[in-house]
Every structure is written in C-alpha cells, then in structure tokens.
C-alpha cells in the first residue's frame, strides 16, 4: 500500500530524515533525471496540468495552470518561490513534509523550476521552523554536491540556484505577494493583481509562488504519471492530501489520505474520534481562515469542491475541532484577534474592521457583550468581501466570524444575558 501515501512514505517520525544517498536509494531524484533527460519543460507542465494537482496552500488553484502563466518567452531571470511560511493557526502539514523528507521538496523544486525554466528558487520558510531550516540547509548542500543544483544540472545546460530564506515572521508573508515584498526586504504588504507574479513578480521579474505540499507531489507525478496521480484520489481532484487534526481528539496529528476522504473518516478513523467525555460541537475544516461546519456535515468529502458546497473550504486540510467544553465565542475571539494582529495595516476594512470585530468578541468574553453589537459583526461579514479588501486576509477572517455568528447565536445571547462567559 506504499503507493497510496507517496508524500509520507519516507517519513519516519522522531528520526532523522533520509540523507541524499538514502533518498536516492529509495528512488529519489529519478524524476529529475527523467524530466531533464526525456521531457521538455512544456511536457512537465502538461503532465502536472493533466494530474489536476490543486494548490495545497489553501486556494486550490491548479498548479500546472499557474505555471503556464509564465510565458515561455518571458524574460530572465525567472524565479520560483516556495511558500513555506506556514502560519495558518493549527496547520503543520508543510512542517511535517519539510522536517520529514526535505529532499522530496528539493526534488519537486527542481522539477517545477525546470518546467518554468527558472534561474533561482527560494524557499521562504517560517521563522519558527528551526528544525526544518536545519534539515533543509543540509539537504540543499547535498543536492548541490550531487549536481542537482547549481550550474549545468545533469549536463542539460540549465542552471538553478536554490536559496533558503528564513522569514522575519508574519502571517502576511504567507500571502504570495506579501511574501514577494518580504523577500525583497520590504514591508509584507500584499500587491494588487494584475499584474500577476507570473509577469511582475520577485524584483519585478516573472515568478511563480507554490506551496510546499503542492511541490512535494510533483516528483511522484513525473515518476508515475498523471493518470496514476488522479487514481490516488477519491474525487476528480488529483492525489493524496496531508490532513491534520487538532483539538480534543484521541490522536491529533497529520495524516496522508486520498483527496476527498470524508471528514468523518479523518476524524474517526485517522484521529481516533473525540476524547472521552467530549462531544463534537463544530469544526474548522481547513485552518483558522475557513468557515465552521457542524456535525451534520461530517460525511462531506474533504476536497476543494465539496467543502465549498457546504459553505466552507478545504483550506489547508488541517482540521480544528471545537468540543462542547470550549466556548465557541472564545474560539472566535482567539481567531479574530489573531487576524487583527496579523493585518499588515494596508487597507482600512482589514486593519480597522478586524480590530473592531475582535473587540466586540472580546467584550462578550469579558461579560461586556451587547446584542446590539451583533449587527456590527454581521455588517463586517457583508462588507469584508473579495473586492472590497485589498487581499484575502480580511475576507477569509470573516469565514469563522460569519459562520460563528450564524451557528452560535444562542451563545452570544447567553453571554450577553449572564454578563459573563459561561465557560470561565
């Protein structure tokens, strides 16, 4: 059954990852040989397009299509940037992949860079990921030593430099254009699109920004083909997915499972179900920036399309479980406080609106809540929508807020009536 978990097959939790020799012995870097020797860059792009590999950073945009935005005639230097600034609360899938199998990521980077004919690739790594940084540094050095990176890779005439950049640390750096600004040494404010990074990206040059997990899939697609990749999935969205679970479940952690595995299977089979004495109240299915779903949605397949159907989103696929001993308004307050803190301060709805929302939630938690503030929260969820804010941070921050106001209205009333948080 090894083939069903291609992303994690080399990962042995608690142990050092495979070094380059072991990685190669396990079949590693064969995709690089195959692509560079037998495939044109366009063929690599086409294969990834056919695999329907959807971006694992949360937006679910087809990776191959995104690569195709960099025109073959685009000027050089071109850049590939790996978004490893995993700061979505409760999300730790990229960390698992980088710490567990750094060469898999590097191999994917080489393939993606080859497809784009990129000259330089950066891994933009979250500041706190010290262990990942250490392991990536070692793996990059090994890859350089073996000639997978650097000048004239495998005598192809094509060269690639790979640099690890450790972020100074902000949620906004995970937004791809904020990331580009941060990498340029500027404030991590987002950029307006168009122009898209494919034309005006890092240092004004053609660029592509991809998530760690997305890129880790690429060697397997190249090795085994798009048809195989599609067959891994339980829906039409290709591949496996690293799902995660946190909260009061029996076995919190990250699990690789076929794309489209239902929520119930992940929570009950992989995470072992709720801890004794706790009941499931609500779920944030894909990180802090996704809308709450309820126990009634448990049979929904966890993929981009089906999660959207129930008014939420797959996001990063790492599930946060809210139990019946936890104040849901407290959860919301925690999340909105996070988003308000992480606003870059660029557009008014975000920096002012999120703070106000967080203040209102906090007032409920502190026993100062007033029901007449609820319409203000609703106003925010109507007004912080795509197009009115500069980037997606504020709009996704509304996902838990608007769904929470809808699902937990009785809790707001109880907090206001009792002038306290009943869970405190």
């Amino acid at each position, binding site marked *: 059954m090894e083939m069903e978990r291609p992303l994690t097959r080399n990962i042995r939790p608690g142990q050092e990852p495979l070094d380059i020799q072991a990685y190669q012995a396990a079949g590693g870097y064969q995709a690089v040989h195959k692509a560079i020797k037998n495939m044109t860059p366009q063929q690599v792009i086409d294969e990834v397009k056919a695999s329907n590999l959807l971006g694992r950073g949360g937006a679910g945009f087809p990776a191959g299509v995104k690569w195709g935005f960099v025109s073959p005639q685009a000027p050089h230097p071109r850049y590939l940037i790996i978004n490893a600034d995993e700061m979505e609360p409760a999300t730790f899938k990229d960390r698992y992949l980088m710490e567990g199998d750094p060469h898999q990521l590097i191999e994917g980077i080489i393939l993606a860079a080859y497809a784009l004919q990129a000259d330089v690739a950066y891994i933009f790594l979250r500041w706190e990921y010290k262990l990942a940084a250490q392991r990536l540094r070692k793996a990059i050095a090994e890859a350089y030593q073996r000639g997978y990176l650097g000048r004239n890779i495998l005598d192809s005439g094509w060269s690639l430099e790979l640099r690890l950049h450790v972020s100074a640390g*902000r949620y*906004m750096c995970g937004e791809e254009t904020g990331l580009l600004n941060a990498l340029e040494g500027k*404030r991590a404010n987002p*950029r*307006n699109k*168009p*122009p898209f990074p494919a*034309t*005006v990206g890092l*240092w*004004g040059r053609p660029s592509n920004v991809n998530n760690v997990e997305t890129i880790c899939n690429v060697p397997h697609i190249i090795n085994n083909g798009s048809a195989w990749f599609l067959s891994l999935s339980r829906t039409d969205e290709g591949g496996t997915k690293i799902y995660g679970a946190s909260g009061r479940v029996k076995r919190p952690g990250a699990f690789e499972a076929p794309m489209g595995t239902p929520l119930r299977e992940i929570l009950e089979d992989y995470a072992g179900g709720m801890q004794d004495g706790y009941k499931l109240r609500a779920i944030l299915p894909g990180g802090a920036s996704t809308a709450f779903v309820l126990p009634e949605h448990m049979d929904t397949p966890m993929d981009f399309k089906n999660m959207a159907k129930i008014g939420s989103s797959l996001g990063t696929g790492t599930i946060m479980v809210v139990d019946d001993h936890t104040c849901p308004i407290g959860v919301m307050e925690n999340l909105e406080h996070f988003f*308000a*803190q*992480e*606003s*870059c*301060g*660029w*557009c*008014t*709805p975000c*920096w*002012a*609106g*999120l*703070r*106000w929302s967080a*203040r209102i939630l906090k*007032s409920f938690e502190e026993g100062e809540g007033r029901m007449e*503030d609820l319409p*203000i929260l609703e*106003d925010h969820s109507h*007004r912080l*929508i795509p*197009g*009115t*804010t*500069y980037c997606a941070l504020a709009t996704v921050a509304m996902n838990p807020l608007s769904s929470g106001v809808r699902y937990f209205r009785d809790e707001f009333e109880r907090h206001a009536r009792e002038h306290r948080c009943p869970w405190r």
Partner: protein
Amino acid sequence: MAKIIVDDREYEVKDGQNLLEACLSLGLNLPYFCWHPAMDSVGACRQCAVKLYRDENDKNGRLVMACMTPAADGTRISIEDAEARAFRASIIEWLMTNHPHDCPVCDEGGECHLQDMTVMTGHNYRRYRFGKRTFYNQNLGPLVNQEMNRCIQCYRCVRFYNDYAGGHDFGAFLLHDTVYFGRREDGVLESEFSGNLVEVCPTGVFTDKTLKQHYTRKWDLTTAPSICVNCSLGCNTIPGERYGMLRRIHNRYNGAVNGYFLCDRGRYGYEFVNSERRIRHPILDRKVQGVTKEEALSRAGELLKDPARVIGVGSPRASLEANFALRTLVGPERFFLGISPSEARLVQQSIAILRDGPARTPSLREIEKADAVLVLGEDVLNSAPMLGLALRQSVRQKPLRRAAQMRIPLWDDKAVRELVQTERGPLYVATPNRTRLDEIATRTYRASPQDIARLGHAVAHAIQSDAPVVEELPEEIRSLAEEIAAALKDAERPVVVSGVSLGSLEVMQAAANVAWALCAAGHPAGIFLTQMEVNSLGLGLMNGKTLDEAVQTARSGQVDTLVILENDLYRRMDTYALEELLSSVAHVIVIDHLSNPTTERAEVVLPAATFAEGDGTLVNNEGRAQRFYQVFVPEGEIQESWRWLRDAMAAAGRSSQAPWSNLDDIVAAMAEELPQFLPVLQVAPPAGFRIAGMKVPRQPARYSGRTAMHAHISVHEPKPPDDPDSPLSFTMEGTPLQPPAALIPRFWSPGWNSVQALNRFQEEIAGPLRGGDPGVRLIEPAEGQQPAYFRHIPAPFAARKSEWLVIPLHHIFGSEELSVLSPAVAQLSARPYLVLNPGDAAALSLVEGGLVEVKLNDTAYRLPAKFSSELPAGLAGLPVGLPGMAVASLPAWGRLASETPLDSSAAEVGKQ
C-alpha cells in the same frame, strides 16, 4: 476618448485614466484618501468604492475601487448605488474608530480632507464603543508637527516622502491598526520637501509647525495668489495673513511650474515679512522715529532734482515694475544691475543662450518628463530645490516605458514601482562636490568648473562633430562623454541643466553646446538654466550696466545721489568697492523692506512692500513672467517700491515722467518702452476685471470677526482698503465663482475645504488650471537656428602649489537672504565652513573641525574645516550667502593656512 456610464449618464473621458480620476475630472463627488493626483493609485484606503456593472443587464454589479479600475470605454458604474454608499460610509466609520474627535483643537480643522470626506459619505453616528489606540509623537524639527493619534493610515506621507521625494529618514513602522509614520527616532526631517507632508496628509497628523506659532484657521486667512521669492524657479504660492501678520505659505498649483509641491525654503521662508527688522516708516538721516512720508519724499525730491547726477541700482529680488520705475527715474544710461558683475555676465549669457540658440527652456513640469538629463555644475537641491524634485521624477521616465509595454496603467503606482524596482533612466551629475542627487545619478563626475566645462564640450562634440573638439582629453573622460552623449541621443526628451550658482561662464556655455548639438543632430533638447534669485532673469532682460561700472561712474564725480532698490549691496560686492561707491556719492536713498548694512548707510530710507504687501511681476529662470498680488495692507507707511519712486519723482517735479496711478499703468509704460516685456500685459487680468460686476474676494466667505477684530479701537467697522491695482478685494465680498487662474486666491469649493478642492479648479486632474496655467513666457528660442557654438574651451584645471581654487557652495537653508530670517529656517541654516579634499587638508596639517584661514583678494575668513573625499584636490568649497559671511566673488584663487584653534567650539567668521 472613452465613454463611461456613471449612474446611467454617459460621459466622455480621457483615455488611460482610472475611474476616480475620471469621476473627479467630471466634477463628480467621490471621496478618497490614499490616491493623490501626483502619486496616483495604490488602493489602500478603499474609500472610493463604486458599483461596477458588466453591462446594462447586470443589476447586481460588484464593488470595486474606482482608483484601481480603468475608465475603459463602455465602463458602467454607479456612485449612488446604496451598497456603494453604505460601504463608503463604513470606511469612514472604521477610520473614526481610532481617529480622535479633536477637530476643535486640531490645526487641520476647517481644511481637513477627512472632515470633508466624512461629511460627504454621510457617516455621523458612532457605534464603536471601545478605546482608541494612541502613539508617541516625535519631534521632527522646526518645520513639521506630528500628531500620530489622528492618523488614518492612508500611506500618503511615506509615499510622498520616500517614493516621490526620495527621502530616507522616514517610514512606515509596525502593523495592523498601529502603523506608525515617522522617523526611527526623534530628529529633524532631512528631506528638502518635508513641508509637503502638511498638504499631503489628509488630516492633522502632519501640520505646519511655524503656523502653530501664530495659528489661524484657513477660513480666517486673507489670501492672494503669490510667487515664492526664495529662488529663481518662481513656484506659485498662497500666503495667508491675519491681524497684519503673515501666517503661512501654502502651495498654489501651477500645472506648468511647481505642480502640487513646494520646497521647505519656499514654504517656510516667509517670516521675514513679520521680522523685527522690518522698516515700516521712512528714515531720514538715520532718524527712525517721527519722520513723515511727506518729509521723506520732500528730501528725496530735492536729491533727485537733477536726473543726470543720479544713478540707480536695481534688484533681482524686486519686481519688474519696481526696477522699471527706477530705470525711468535715473534713465537707462544710469541704471545698474544690482548683482555682482560676474553674475551679471552669467545672467546676460543665460538670456543669450535661451533667446539666440535653438534649444528651448522646458518648464519645471516638463523637466519631470525628461527621459535623459545632464547636470553641469549645479547642486540643484540647494540652488533650486524644486528642480531636484522634478529631476527625481525624470529618472522614472525611461523605465516607465516598460510598464507601458506591459500594459500596466501608469496610474497603478504600486504595480509600476514593483516592475521598475530600482531601475532609473539616465541622469549624469557633474559637480565639484557631492550632491544629494548623486544617489539617483547614473554616473557622477567630480571636477573643477574648468573640467566640468571640458566634459560638457566633449559631450557636445560626441553628439555633433561641428561642436568644438576638446584637446588632450583623458581617455576615461572621453568615454564618459561618449556614454553621456549616447544616453542623451537615445532619449525622446533630453534636457541639459546648468546655471549660475557655480559662477562659471564656461560651464554654462558648455551646457548650451550640449543642448545645441542635440538640436542640430535632430534630438530636440531642452536647456534649463537656474538663476540666483526670483527676478534675476527679469532684471537681466531690463538691461543695465554692472556694478563695477557704477563704481567707475561714481568715482568720476558725475554722481550726487545713489538710489538703491531693494538691495543689500554688501551681499553683492566686496566691501572696498562698495565703500568706494558709497563715499563717491553725496547722498544715498534706499528703498527696502528690511534694515540691513546698506540701509544703515542711507540718508533716506523708504519702507518698501514685501511680496505679501504689494503687487508686481517676476520673471523666473524659464523666462515666465508671473504676477504676485498683495495679500494684506501692512501697518505703517509701507508701499510698493514703484510707488515710492513715482512719488519721489513727483516730489522732484518730474511727475509727468511717471504718470502711473496703478499697476496696469506702469506695466503698460514698461511694455511700450521695453518691447521684450510686451507679453507681460497678458500675464493677468487688468485691475478693472470683474466677474458679473464683482471683484475676487481675498477673504473666504466664512471669514470671522471682521467687526470684532477692531473693536478695541472702534466698534465701527472700518472701511475696507481699496485695491486700485488688481481685481481682488480685501474683504469677503465678491464673486462666488472661480476666477481666472492668475487670480485664484485659494482653493475652495463647496464641500471641499481642504487643499484637495484644487481638483475643482483644473481642466482635468493634474492638468492645467481652468483657462490655462498662469504665467507668460517672455523668451522662446530662435526656431530652426543653426547653433553658433561657443568655441572657447578652458584649459584643464591644474592644482596650484600654494593656492586653492575656491568655489561657491549653496545651501537650501542659509544661502538665501530673506528666508534665513524665518526662525525655523535660521535654525536649520548651515554654519560657515570651508570644505577641502582630505589629502589637501593633510598637506596643510589640518584636522577636521580645525580652523583654517582663507585669504581671497582682500577678504579673509577663519572657518572650521570640513573634509570631502569627493572634492577634487586643489579645490576648496566655501558656502555663500550665509548670514555674517563677507561676500566674495567666486570661483577665485585663494590662500589657505591652518590655524591652531584657540577655542575649537567657536569659529570666528571674520570680515576684514
């Protein structure tokens, strides 16, 4: 043209605009904050939301930001849509969650864009019930006050200061709702343009610190259109007065000159008008008190009886009319230019270059659009600061072509800057010492005036071989010249910048050759020559003899009376020559507004009006004649210099020669006598101009307390003063309509109380004022002329063994005579020093800060030494014009000697 549909009405708009520009150009009310017409769109504030519809069948539409959406043909939007209105109101509601409601004690109140936009959106009820964030305020120096609690995070300040004006000591710090706009630590803002923060900030975060010393609300200011008098560029200004005191200067947009901004010298240099040193009554025989106007004029009349024995010295800081009146009084043969002989030669040379050569002088605004620039000899940020700001924009022009190729709209400022990054178009700076423009220069060249001229000539020759060859040019200079020549030839709008501030005729001639060579080679180039003062070129156009000729004339015993117009001759000529002039005449009459060493020597001193107290015409370095208007009626016997001269002629029984009753009369007389000034008749409407029978009010409709402000003297409201010279009234009565551009006393429009009301006065956003920008150019180049190249090429500079070539250095703060009398400017003024190459200093055993003795002809200075590794060996730099420094005609060879400092903390600034 594109057709757009706004709220079901079709409009024609210019191609390539965004919807916000288009709507504002159409006169529609759409609120905004972060967008600025000179800095374009970034989409931060989200205030200008409108509903965008796919087509006429789309009933839902979606909210978009007007500033970030192209006004493409067929675009259908609604401003009035309920959702769009509600969203715009909620932006204000969000901003108000932190904005302190301190309007009553805020300096911005009454001219606050945030107030206007709040009213415009209709937000008026506060639902937010939590605390507001607070900040520490920094001391940013004497010019700009900071009150960060009022900040609405529109990012205009940092975009102006860093992106537009190239500042480094300002930034956006922190994040979310506590973004902080300021310096890393307290300290004086370093930019020459920091004062623009006051107008760029849409609310009261950055306000005018000098205004704070004598605060007045905008609606209580009496204002009139004016011209900055602190350099030769002639930026347009709006000075404001109350209670007989000038309170502040605001920018007056002129689409062809200064656009939206002013430099700090121009904005803050106004306080000499309020100076203790003002002369407000006539002075006779140094008797200050109790001299009546009649007594003074009667004495002047006696002294002027025999015009053949009177000579007059004009002034580059006096109006054309004042200089013309003096010229009329003494006759053209006895009219002398009140500038040093060497400067006079430079001014005459400038006029000849602009008039007789094929190269046109661009306006300041056109400089912004230049796509390759060569600067020869000028430290522009000190000699003509706004030119530096324009050059900072010019280096963006070439890279902007790439944005256009990639179809990125040029108004999408962030996208354009992301694309362009640090790429800059060609700018070559050749000066003796480092300049603040170096950081954006493609290459810099540090050399003596001679070698700068040689480089210029080599560039000219590389462009067109008819231009003279420079012999014995080192290979590296030749290749630099070829690089510059190629860059200039490759450009669509190349410009050569030079001027008088280095005091070198040779450099100016070389600059002309470069521009002319470009013209001859089929690349129409501009030549932009700075002058020293506000009316230097006007004075030069008037023709006149030089001051050394004045000394000769006086020495020959032909002169009884010397009349000096608005001029401190101690700043123009060395003391010996001046003493000789003064001692060769029996009587001295001075007309000026400030007491100075020259007025001390006068038998009769007549109190002249400053720019704020009289009308007149000034000619900037571009040859643009512009009118400034009296702002207020000063106390005392102050009147325009031309009126004093007219009255003095009448007292001398010569009234038939000066039959001028108002400004129009003297302008007409001048145009008749001197045809070069014929276009001055078109500079502004005549005094009799009326709109529907009404004058243009200097006071806003909301001017308060006009009865009360004099009540301690009389409860009867005094009759307002007459103004025979202009169509402006001194009261709030007058036309509510927009006057012609030359007469705009302030930018105000219903609902638009801030400077942003300007949008309502332009033909299109950032375009000319309605009816055309004010000012008339007096000089145009000779069309189709083959250049008569300057053939004299100086020999290469050779350092001397015991002498140094002392060159003049200029300072934005300190070198200009009047502005340095503003306390805020004085605080920032440079202190006297001498700058040397460290190698030379070592040879003199000089330590940095140690005293050095400088001997120039008859003048000696003892100054602290500064080192500059960029200043070539054999040169020494001496700041000019600083208060207390004796004048010297530079460049000149001088001797230097190290002095053992007796007291290292104080340098004695010795006059011989």
